[in-house]
Each structure stands twice: as C-alpha cells, then as structure tokens.
C-alpha cells in the first residue's frame, strides 16, 4: 500500500540530489490545473458531488492503458490519514496545505516513486503535479503531459477554444500551468544581492517566494521561482522562459560563491564549520535554527569546504525535522520544547559518523 509507505518514509525521489544543477536547484515542479466539464468547481460542490468527482478520477487513474504509459497511480482519500500523516504529505511537497482544509471531500493520487501526484478537489478538480530533482522542468512537463493525455481519454475537461483550460481562479486559466524551481541561494544572501535579483524576477512575469517562511522570512535561503502568467503563452514558452531566468540566477549564485571562495574563504569556512559543530553537538534545536544551519552546511559542501555529507541527507532532513514527522517517529504528541530536544537528538544521531 503505497500511501502508508509514503507517510512512513521521509524519502522522496526529488530529494536524491541527482538532477542537473542540483547543487543550487534543489527541485523542479510542474503543476497543471484541470476541471471536469459540466461540473461546478470544487468550492461549489456539496460532499456527495465532490465524491462523484473523486469517483470519476479514480476510474480514470486506474485505467490499465494509463498505467502502462505513466506508471501505476493509486488514489487515496485524505480522510484515510491521520492529521499528522496529512501534514507529512505537505512537508514532502506532494500536496498543498490547502488540500488539508475540508479534507473529508478530497483525495490524493500518487505514483509509488512520488514523482507524480494529483490533488483531487483542491481549488480545481484536478491538480496534476510532477516533482523532480534539480533543474528539469522540461522533463517534468513531458511526464505531466503523458499523464494528462491518459486521463483525458476517460474524462471530459472543461476547455474553451479561446481561453484554454478553464479554472476556478482566473489567474490559472489557459495552460493551467505553474512551473517552479526551488533554489538554494546562500551566496547571494551573504553578499546581500538577493533583493535585487528577486525584484528583477517580478519584472519578467515570474514570482519569487521564500520557502518554509513563516510569513515574511525565507528559511534556509530557499526560494521558489515560478511563472505568473498562464494565458497567451504555450507550456513550452513558459518553461523555456522560466528555465532561462533560473539559469541566470544560478550563474549569479555560482559567480558569487567563486568570489567568496577567493576573497572571503576564512569567513565562509568559519560559518560552515560552526554550523557543522552545532548540528553535531546541540541538544536543543528549533526547526528555524536547523534550517539555517543546513543551509550553511549545504553551501560548504557545494564549495568543497567540507566533504562526506551527502546533499541527499540534507534534503531528507528538511522533512524529517518538521514537527509532523517528529511526532510520527516519536509516536506521541510533544510540546515545542520536547520537539526541539528530539530534533537535536535525531540530527546528532545522523551526524555521529559524519
């Protein structure tokens, strides 16, 4: 039963750090919105109608031909999971936080490697998502396109010749596509160039958002860059535009790191090894502090200032140190302080041999 495996195992394919540019581009995600023709959008459906949609999606994803093309997809009701387990799916980036609200009428479809997931009855009837390691937007779109073609054989989509795929929110209409790349930008952060870079992004139809941020602060120097416009551009145009800009940012980050290596190596080295020392020895760690330290450690690994710590481990730890997963592993509710102690212990154990 893949869903149990998904919530018990903190690992997901996108964390493998084996994609192109994965030293800076942690992961790439493409998500498309689709709705069934003739049925009101999810926010207008009562529970019985919402179940009809889930049923239609279940039939479509269990189609044998689709399985041959795109791999076995399994639909599960969100109500089959505990609140902690639902949160783990969010922390693993497989579903959005919105899918958890009113979970009684919602479902998730997963491929067993978690590369493909489909949210059912979120803002739209379907949100098909593909998540890959590194900078691989084209590959992600190809996979989605296949799954989408397969689903369309069984389901009638709400589509208009003029406006494309029709969505509940007019910001998604057209391609229904949101493509995004998660970037780790500690170098630009250190030399305080981030604001400039990210402001520039807004001027070319993209948005930048801090990841895991509690409102305003970006945690762990992680930023998500995504397209804003979905109408009037083809999927390929959206992706090549986003990819080009992301490559720009990556090369700026690389140039900054080179300059730091040349001119300020002792300063960076000090930060990296302090982070390493704290992670290896601390007995109380908040998730904010841990994320900051992971970021510094990751920078150290990528700048070859320290070795022996796989990037894959850091990707996984980002999920494992979140409250939901800690509670799942501990098997009991914990106060914030208890979690901080438990988190530090978990990290110390991982770093014992490193």
């Amino acid at each position, binding site marked *: 039963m893949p869903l149990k495996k998904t919530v018990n195992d903190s690992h997901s394919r996108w964390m493998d750090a084996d994609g192109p540019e994965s030293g800076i581009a942690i992961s790439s995600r493409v998500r498309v919105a689709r709705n069934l023709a003739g049925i009101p959008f999810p926010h*207008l459906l009562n529970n019985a109608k919402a179940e009809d949609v889930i049923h239609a999606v279940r039939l479509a994803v269990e189609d044998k031909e689709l399985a041959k093309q795109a791999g076995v997809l399994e639909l599960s009701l969100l109500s089959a999971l505990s609140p902690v387990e639902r949160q783990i799916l969010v922390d693993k980036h497989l579903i959005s936080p919105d899918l958890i609200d009113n979970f009684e009428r919602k479902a998730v479809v997963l491929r067993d490697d978690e590369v493909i997931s489909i949210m059912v009855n979120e803002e739209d009837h379907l949100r098909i998502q593909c998540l890959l390691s590194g900078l691989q937007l084209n590959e992600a779109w190809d996979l989605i396109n296949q799954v989408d073609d397969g689903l369309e054989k069984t389901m009638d989509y709400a589509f208009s010749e003029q406006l494309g795929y029709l969505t509940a929110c*007019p910001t998604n209409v057209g391609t229904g596509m949101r493509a995004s790349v998660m970037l780790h930008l500690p170098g630009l952060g250190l030399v*305080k160039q981030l604001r400039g870079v990210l402001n520039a992004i807004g001027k070319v139809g993209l948005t930048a958002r801090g990841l895991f941020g509690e409102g305003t602060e970006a945690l762990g120097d992680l930023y998500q860059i995504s397209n804003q416009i979905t109408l009037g551009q083809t999927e390929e145009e959206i992706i090549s535009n986003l990819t080009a800009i992301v490559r720009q940012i990556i090369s700026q980050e690389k140039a900054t790191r080179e*300059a730091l290596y040349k001119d300020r190596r002792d300063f960076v080295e000090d930060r990296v090894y302090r982070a390493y020392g704290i992670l290896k020895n601390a007995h109380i760690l908040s998730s904010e502090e841990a994320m900051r330290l992971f970021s510094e450690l990751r920078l150290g690994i990528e700048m070859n200032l320290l070795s022996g710590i796989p990037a894959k481990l850091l990707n996984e730890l980002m999920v494992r140190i979140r409250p939901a997963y800690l509670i799942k592993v501990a098997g009991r509710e914990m106060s914030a302080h208890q979690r901080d102690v438990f988190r530090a212990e978990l990290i110390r154990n991982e770093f014992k041999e490193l």
Partner: protein
Amino acid sequence: MLCERCGQRPATVHMTEIINGHKSETHLCEVCAREIQPQGFGFVPQIHLHNFLAGLLNHELGGEQHDQAETTGNRCEKCGVPEGQILKQGLLGCGDCYPFFEDKVLPLLRRIHGSTRHTGKVPERTGGRARLAKEIGILKNHLKEAVSREDFEQAAQLRDQIHQLEKSMNEGGEV
C-alpha cells in the same frame, strides 16, 4: 586603507558584491562589518490572492457597490453562482461562468495575463475544432517558411494538407 564606512579604523574586511555581473568591492573595519551583518531577504507580506482578485473583479463588475451581498447580481445559467459571490471569493463557479460573465472576465484576464487567447496545449479528444485550428496554424507557419526558401514542392504539399484540415473543420470537427 581606512574603513569606507567610519573612516576611522583600518579596513580589514573586504566584501565582494556582484551586481549584474560587475564586481564591486567594499572595504570595512571589523566593527562596521559586524554591524552590517547580512540580513535575510524580507518579503512583502503576501496579499491574499483571492481577496486581491475579488477586488479587481469588483472593479470590473460593479464599480462602486463594494458591499454587494453574496447573493446579488446575475446568476450563471449553468451553476447558478451569483455575481456577488464571485466578487467575494475571487473564484468562478464553473466553466460556463467564463462565457456567461465574459464581458467582465475578459478585461480581468487581459490585466492579469496580458492576453485573452490560449495558445498552449489542446486536449486530444475534447479539443475538437481547437485542435484542428492549432494544427492549421502550425502548418501555415511551415508553409510560410517553405515559400521563403522557395521550396515550392513542399509548399504545395503543405497547402493541400491545410485545405484538407480546413475542409474537415468546416464539416464539423473530426479529421
């Protein structure tokens, strides 16, 4: 060299900044360097997208009636959602809301996307005419290229294909 910031202590910290690919250097003393410690990038708090859209739609639909009740206004023929509710939620009710509220939705789309015409993927089965139209568009581009490189044999072939597709489109959809 003295610190560029205080001009009093010797500069021992040399910071490199890269702006648009150009490197610029700042020389500071230890004290000043610590004072301008790198800070995280602060984001403008995110506006709640739906409220924001609702505001835009409100402008598009009604203008001054900001306190319009959820149940007022025209209702979509298909899903029955009233204008008032769309304004409040920033969400349309169903696919048919798009043509039904067209005169209000199109200006909004132009403002959000700078366009009111989809040029991307067309679903294979339900796409029908749209799919044909897209294919014809692609062939016409090929035709233009063929003519410009004076490949008239290719051009004639393409012209035949285009005629074929246009014919089936006029006959009602399927190839």
